[in-house]
């Protein structure tokens, strides 16, 4: 395949950025999107040009490092027929001769570092604010000693699938990280182990979400449409219910 890439190049956070045009020949339709960027970078390196900086790690859709906006959609969601991460998007999703625009996540809470790389450590701080359960470590307890109801544990599992990639923020017209935060809240709120800290957790995670400069949710739904792990919009309603209830409780006063 022959493709044209328009890639956002920006030397650092302060520099002026622009879209740069690159032609690639001999792209295989079985290559992943990241392999295509690798190919471009090899070409740039041999031409003695600066390679394109992009984030990546597992390349199997589980670490959440690799997100970029492809043709106006995080992870190229609307080029693909199935929910996907950038590393799992394959070139067969594009036509031969296609022109593809690649931009970094853009949001107030995700400052740009270089080219396609943004700083997503705001997510780590939201998790640190309460996305955990405080228990003594030691030998694992017997699995059946704490019964977890089937429906709730299924919901917990579905929400635990969030890989913290940030596509939801990148898609959101408000730059809100509510789907990510809601996935974490719902995951722990559905499990028996999550109950003791349930209401202090939602307060402190929302406080951190807002302090990081993310926007408020206006129930538009762009986030859930692009999420590679199909975290449902309903999780945000769960977060809202838990937060409203928490306001009438003493935790964190």
């Amino acid at each position, binding site marked *: 395949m022959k493709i044209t890439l328009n890639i956002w190049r920006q030397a650092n956070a302060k520099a002026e950025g622009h879209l740069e045009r690159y032609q690639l020949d001999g792209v295989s339709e079985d290559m992943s999107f990241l392999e295509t960027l690798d190919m471009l970078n090899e070409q740039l390196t041999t031409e003695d040009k600066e390679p394109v900086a992009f984030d990546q790690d597992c390349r199997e859709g589980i670490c959440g490092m690799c997100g970029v*906006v492809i043709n106006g959609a995080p992870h190229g969601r609307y080029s693909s027929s199935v929910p996907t991460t950038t590393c799992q998007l394959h070139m067969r999703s594009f036509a031969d001769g296609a022109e593809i*625009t690649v*931009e970094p*996540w853009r949001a107030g809470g995700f400052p740009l570092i270089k080219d396609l790389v943004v700083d997503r450590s705001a997510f780590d701080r939201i998790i640190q604010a309460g996305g955990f359960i405080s228990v003594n470590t030691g030998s694992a307890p017997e699995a059946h000693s704490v019964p977890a109801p089937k429906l709730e544990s299924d919901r917990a599992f579905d929400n635990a699938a969030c890989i913290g990639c940030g596509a939801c923020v990148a898609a959101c017209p408000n730059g809100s990280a509510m789907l990510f935060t809601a996935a974490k809240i719902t995951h722990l709120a559905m499990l028996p182990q999550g109950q003791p800290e349930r209401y202090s957790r939602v307060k*402190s995670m*929302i406080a951190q979400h807002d*302090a990081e400069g993310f926007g408020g949710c206006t129930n538009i739904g762009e986030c859930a449409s692009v999420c590679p792990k199909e975290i449902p919009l*309903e999780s945000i309603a769960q977060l809202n219910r838990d937060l409203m209830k928490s306001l009438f409780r003493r935790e964190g006063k």
Partner: protein
Amino acid sequence: MTPVATQTLTVHQKAVRSSVAMKVLMAVTGIFLILFLLMHAWGNLKAFFGPEAYDHYAEWLKSDILYPLIPKGWFIWIFRVFMVACIVLHMLSAYLLTVRSWGARGRYQRKDRRSQTFAARTMRWGGIILLMLLLFHLGQFTVKLFLTGFTATSTPYQAVVLTFSQWYMVILYALFVGTVCFHLRHGIWSALTTLGANTSPAARRGLNYTAIFVAALLFAGFMAMPVAVLFGGIK
């Protein structure tokens, strides 16, 4: 460095001031406004029962509701203060969330939006247009500052009949009601979701249908009387 939340507020205080709590305020005040609109549209239909019925109803609104629990004429003022408080709090939370959102959103060279409805996209500017038209509407029929074809001494019935016998007034009114109904197409779904009602994909569909249904109902309810006046059904 990214700011770590300031240490002066407790976690509870931060939660009370959070974007989610602000949205809840916006949703609750919005729902009070919708309940008022439903009542208002219902009340307007009195015009189909003739001048006495309509003027008596208009008179009743301003006189003996809740009398003798409270003195005559008090209810309307309590009600007005409550409505103004709702609108002010609604706009205040909308303003604060909008400023937050403008600082947080990204600007792309190319961006596809697949889920956002037209109604959702126009909530902010639509809200401002709505406010302008609302002020005109109050200036017209409540304060009687803009006399659109009637005089300061006209009865409420005469005021609406004389106003809506003019086709352009009906169009302007349709524009006003239409703006409100578009606001509510997203607003009703959004308020109920903010309050936690979106519990499943089926609930999501249900909430969206509810929003469309209530918005359409309000449009029909408000437009029935002016259209009847224009085409001579009400004289």
